[in-house]
Structure formats: structure tokens, C-alpha cells
């Protein structure tokens, strides 16, 4: 429906539009990170586009892409926009960061859509993309003491970073690996070692 928007983008930012498609009616454009801010401003201010509603922003991690030449960066940032006047929507993608997430930064669009503020903080918190020009770039879901970004694929799935120290064995009187009354086989099935005869209380 709004392929007119994609046509307009191609016309205006020819070299910065890397690929476009309209699968299932979802108009999508992948752009270069450098043109992120300019394209955002164009989409907001152009009378024919008039994207006045910021829907969503998220990061998608593809670790295998990091080292591949011409694939762009490892972290794909996806933005969804909607126009309440023109009733059309568009999806904007870009890729940043190499295999070590170096250079994973992008221009903030907070001054264009104030609603982007917390979403950019979330993408920073979870995926580790730094947004240049953001007024208040802090963690929003995790606590400041948290190290790393949990939605990166190389963050260990079961690694916890407790805010307060767990009770010690001396305090609890028993090994904290599994406090009584739980045996080794109790609790959820995954992540626990299998039950053996030696676990029976003597």
C-alpha cells in the first residue's frame, strides 16, 4: 500500500537504501547506519510520509554476520513507524557493530519522536547499542550493577548477577546448591543433574 514510501526513499536517499522488500504487505527498507537520522527526519517531516507515530524499536543479534564482509554489522536494529494521517506503516532496519560489538552506535531519534526515549534505552540495556545524542542513556530494565547485555547471543543463558549476596552455607546450614526439602531431581527438569541412588537420604 505504502510502496510509495519506499519509492520516495529510494528516490531521495538512493545510495543509502541497501535493500527493500514488501513481503506480506510489510514495507521494509534496510539502510546504512550513517543515514539513520536523516532518513528518520525525512519520514517524519515529509508531507507524503508523515510518520507521526513511533511504534517499536528493537535489536536482533546475528553473531555470525559480524565478520562477514558486506553483510553489515552484527546487531540489527529494527524500527517500526506508523502514520495516523496517511494510515500507512514502514519498517526500517540497519546493522551496526562488528563481531565484538565494537562500533555498535547509532544516532538517537528521540528529538524526532519523544516516544523513542525508553525504547532506545531498552535496546541499549538488552543489546548494547549506544545511541548518540540520547538525553538519558541508562539501563532501563536491568540494574546499574549488571555487567554485559543479556540479549547478546554470547551472554551465557544461565549466568545470574545477584544484586545481594546469596545466603552462605554457614547461614543456611546446608549446601545451597539444593536446599532441603528439594532433592537433586526435584524442581524443573532441565538444568538439574539426574537423580541417582546416592541422593536418597540415609
Amino acid at each position: 500500500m505504502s510502496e510509495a514510501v519506499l519509492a520516495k526513499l529510494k528516490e531521495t536517499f538512493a545510495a543509502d537504501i541497501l535493500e527493500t522488500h514488501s513481503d506480506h504487505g510489510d514495507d521494509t527498507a534496510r539502510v546504512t547506519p550513517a543515514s539513520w537520522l536523516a532518513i528518520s527526519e525525512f519520514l517524519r517531516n515529509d508531507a507524503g510520509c508523515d510518520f507521526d507515530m513511533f511504534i517499536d524499536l528493537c535489536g536482533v543479534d546475528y553473531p555470525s554476520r559480524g565478520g562477514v564482509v558486506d553483510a553489515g554489522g552484527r546487531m540489527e536494529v529494527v524500527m517500526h513507524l506508523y502514520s495516523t494521517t496517511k494510515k500507512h506503516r514502514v519498517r526500517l532496519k540497519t546493522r551496526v557493530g562488528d563481531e565484538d560489538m565494537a562500533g555498535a552506535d547509532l544516532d538517537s531519534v528521540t528529538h524526532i519522536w519523544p516516544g523513542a526515549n525508553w525504547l532506545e534505552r531498552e535496546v541499549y540495556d538488552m543489546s548494547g547499542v549506544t545511541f548518540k545524542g540520547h538525553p538519558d542513556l541508562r539501563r532501563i530494565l536491568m540494574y546499574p550493577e549488571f555487567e554485559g547485555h543479556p540479549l547478546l547471543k554470547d551472554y551465557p543463558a544461565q549466568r545470574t548477577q545477584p544484586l545481594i549476596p546469596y545466603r552462605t552455607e554457614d547461614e543456611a546450614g546446608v549446601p545451597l546448591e539444593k536446599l532441603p526439602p528439594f532433592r537433586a531431581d526435584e524442581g524443573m527438569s532441565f538444568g538439574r543433574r539426574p537423580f541417582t541412588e546416592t541422593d536418597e537420604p540415609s
Partner: protein
Amino acid sequence: MSASSSTSQVVLDGNETGFATTRLDALLGWARKYSLFAYPFVTACCGMEFMALNSPRFDLARFGAEAPRFSPRQADLLWVVGTISQRQAPVLRRIYEQMMEPKYVLAFGTCASCGGFYDNYTTVPGIDKIIPTDVYVPGCPPRPEAVLDGLMLLQDKIASGDRRAAIVKPRTDPVPALTNIRKNPTLELREARANSKLEKRREEAAHEKDHDHEAKKASKSAASPVRPSTIPPPSKEELEIEEAWEDDGGNNTHDEGSSEDES
């Protein structure tokens, strides 16, 4: 003193005077188990089941534990209902530290007990990693009956002064016959009654044959699994149902019988 340490009821009339002896901790435990002031720390979906628990159908008030206190300083029992995230852990610890002794903690549901299916960076794998826990109630969420089991378990522990952790075990229907009767009333009743008749006949035969007590005992122990003594004599209604069942010959032709009754 030692012989009279158990509690018993003594009623005094008129001018009678007297005294009763008990251990102080037994008296305190008895008083505490029926006056648990609860602090609900409700964080997740288990809260819906917690509301059901407080509603008239399950009626927490029967156990003297219905009064919530939203100040931890006035509470005895900390209900931890739902998932505790790493970010919440310091808050939970602070709440626990603010409670007055004696204080008890009940882990409501799988998430509070061991982290549940959240095995990742956000979730505390069981509140016992940060505060001592008295009773665990597994379930996702647990049925209110399971929680009542946990509460009664806690009351027993309070009365006996036992502070070791305990878990609510899964419960099966103690009398499967009851469930079956609900499904097919006549069939189950017929079986039960046939068993009781069989046992009666066996007893009579054993009586006539041999007056030896051992033989009698053996016949009793070999009796049917359904306890015949608990089965009441059939009422008039039950007999009618049974007759209808026998008339049908086991086929589902109840319509004819009912139409005849109406005419």
C-alpha cells in the same frame, strides 16, 4: 510435672478452683498457630490463586490467617507469591528483615520455591537463596487446597517448634471409590455391596467351619479392598436406581423408564 506436660481440657464448675500445667513454648505455639498475621508479597500470576484462597470458597479465615498486614512490622507470616527477580531480591530481603520474631516464610508456587521455568539472568532461583523459608508449596500455580495443606503444615511446625524446611507433597484422592461413584453411581454401589455380601458369607462359613480365631482373622484380611463396614445400607432411592439399572440390563434405555414413570 513431666506427666502432666501434655495439654488437656479441664472444665471447672462453680466454686471449684484448680490449675493446669503445660510447657510455655507449647502454649505459645498453640497461640501463634491460630493468629498468623500475613504479609502478602505478591508479584506474579500466583496472586490470582492467592485471591481464590482468601475468598469464601476456601476461606483462609478458618485457620486464623486471613488478616493481611501491609506493614512487615506487624506481620508474622510472609507469603512470597510469585516470581522474584534479581532486582526485587533486596526488597524482599529488607521486608523479611523488618518483620518481628517469630517470623515465618511460605514460598507460594514453583517460582518462589526454586525459580520455576525461569533459569536465566533475571530470576532468583528460589527465595531460599536470600531468606530462610519454612514451607514450600509447589505448583504453577498451586491449587488453593495445596496452599491450605502448606498452611496446616506450617501450623503443625509452629505448634511443635520445628523450624526445618518442609514441602507440600502431591496429594492423591484418598478414596478413589468416591470418584468412581460420582461417575457411575449404580455400578460402584453394586460392586461394593456385592463385596460386603461376599465377606458376610465368608464370615458365616468360617464361623460354621471352624471356631478358631486365626481362621477368622485370615478370612477378614482376605476380604475385599472396599471396607464393608463403611458402606451404609442402601437407601430407598439407591434401591430404585439399582432396580432401574438391572431392568435396563446395562443398556442406556433410561428414556422409556422415565416416560413410564411420568404416565
